[in-house]
């Protein structure tokens, strides 16, 4: 039996009905069943949700965020050494379904939540810029950590709004991380040096196995090349690196392929990091995804985090850093141990 299509139901939180983004989204999904709700958390956090079924038939929740518009970075997120690092969550959850994704351990729902009160986010960001600890550096704000913002841009056009907001705020630098191959929504925008488009890059054999519904790495590479040509700063994120048989050969040939297409001079920087996840998120991920071999690998707990045993992790990163240095100068490579 075919499940209901994605966004067959749109839940609208009371108080979020009149925002332009709500109206636009409801117009776009005019056939969707609309459900008026008191509080988005009553749908999103309710017990008894089947994450896997929801991934096959995702719904959308349009809500108004009340607080926590800007989060400070923590040990699990990549701050690239920026002193004023922060992230925010205009959207919760992702339209893709990667087997290793921490979101399936972080949230009890696979439905998407979009916060429609963008002006409140902007206001809070202006305050965060003014109150940043190091005034000699901009506020570095990652927009796309708990989602893939560019991938959902045709449905929820947050990237365009944030890029224009960033343009007007010279002490702000933003990063939009994605696996999307579609940069068409940004086509009409003037590129901005303070807006980094960051592509998660995964070698094809690993992407095929664990990123089944995300655009293939070749297409991501095309999108990154187009973005560079248009003048956008591009970051490549080889993260998470996943251990597999012949990882050395697989990553080596993948780096060759990537840098035969993109010149190291054109790439702003790159990151490398072995798969790591909060151990509680992993417990839930394993429950949601018992049918993937990834959850049965030799992960080790260190504090709150789960990853490969330290020695294996260091060995992989050392080797991969050496391989990456053939294409990029050391100062452009950020490694997460």
């Amino acid at each position: 039996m075919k499940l209901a299509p994605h966004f067959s139901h749109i839940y609208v939180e009371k108080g979020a009905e009149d925002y332009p983004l709500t109206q636009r989204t409801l117009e776009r999904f005019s056939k969707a069943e609309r459900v008026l709700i008191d509080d988005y958390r009553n749908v999103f956090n309710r017990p008894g949700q089947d994450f896997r079924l929801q991934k096959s038939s995702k719904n959308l929740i349009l809500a108004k965020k009340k607080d926590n518009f800007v989060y400070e970075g923590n040990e699990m997120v990549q701050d690239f050494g920026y002193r004023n690092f922060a992230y925010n969550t205009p959207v919760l959850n992702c339209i893709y379904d990667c087997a290793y994704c921490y979101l399936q351990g972080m949230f009890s729902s696979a439905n998407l939540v979009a916060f429609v009160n963008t002006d409140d986010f902007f206001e809070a960001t202006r305050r965060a810029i003014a109150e940043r600890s190091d005034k000699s550096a901009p506020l570095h704000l990652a927009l796309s950590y708990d989602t893939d913002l560019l991938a959902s841009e045709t449905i929820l056009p947050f990237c365009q709004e944030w890029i224009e907001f960033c343009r007007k705020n010279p002490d702000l630098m933003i990063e939009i991380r994605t696996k999307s191959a579609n940069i068409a929504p940004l086509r009409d925008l003037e590129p901005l040096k303070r807006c980094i488009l960051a592509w998660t890059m995964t070698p094809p054999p690993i992407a095929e196995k664990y990123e089944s519904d995300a655009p293939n790495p070749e297409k991501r590479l095309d999108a990154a090349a187009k973005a560079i040509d248009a003048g956008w700063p591009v970051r490549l994120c080889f993260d998470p690196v996943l251990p597999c048989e012949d990882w050395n050969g697989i990553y080596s040939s993948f780096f060759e392929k990537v840098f035969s297409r993109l010149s190291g001079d054109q790439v702003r920087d790159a990151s490398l990091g072995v798969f790591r996840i909060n151990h509680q998120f992993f417990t839930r991920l394993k429950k949601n995804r018992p049918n993937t071999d990834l959850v049965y690998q030799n992960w080790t707990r260190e504090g709150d985090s789960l990853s490969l045993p330290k020695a294996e992790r260091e060995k992989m990163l050392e080797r991969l850093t050496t391989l990456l240095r053939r294409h990029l100068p050391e100062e452009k490579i950020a490694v997460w141990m």
Partner: protein
Amino acid sequence: MSNLVLVTALPVEARPLVRRLGLKQGQTNVRFNVFEGETGSLAVSGVGANASAAATSHLLTLAGSNSIAVNIGLAGCGDRCVDRGRLFLINRIADYSSDREFFPEIFFRHELSEASCVTYSKPVFKASTAPTEFIELIDMEASGFYQAASAFLPAHRILCLKTVSDHLDGGKLSVHQCESWIESAMDSILSTIDRATSVAEHEITGVSSEESDLIHGLAKVWRLTSTQKVQLENAVSKSKWSQGEFPEKELHDALQSKPSHKHERTELLNQLTKKLS
């Protein structure tokens, strides 16, 4: 195949279901009527959320987690544009007295209209409301039913179907009329239940129910502790999804050994998990 657990408040709501599903009067040791058949069971709970919760819990305790729970009944609607006799699939249940809201998960395609349903603790009579895109029904059971069912089942195994019986105007309802509304909605009701049942079969588990039976069988024969049973389940899942095949032969072989004391049991389990890794 999932067990069907049906809960109605009134006999008039139950009769068409009892007839159509060929259910027979069942246990008499509870305060509500229970009907049973091959497909499942039905309780006529009586009016009110508490009564509905009690009946739902009772049936689900007996039926287990491989069930689909369905509340079927009559409801009022303040919007006079909504015809009496019209059947709705409920997508939001709100409890008026506690201000809580609950959401059955509708993963399947269907042709019914959907609506929200607010459960009150006493009959509601009020002036008609203006038509709105968000249709709201009013009943006296749904929140109790849902809260009880959700203690046993995930949200996509819980359904609530309501037929509009009145416009909250306090007019007398004819028993015959109410029964005929449910009767004429039977095809839609059963087809909706079938669809929900098909969705439940899409659930992904680490091991199938047959495979799970084999694991539990071995755990029983070896008299494994709860922790050891989890270790065994993990080892089997790991073997199945890493090597692409359920280790049926290894488990059948293991069943031939019967440990006589706990040290031997631990040793056998260690050997088996090592073999499966």
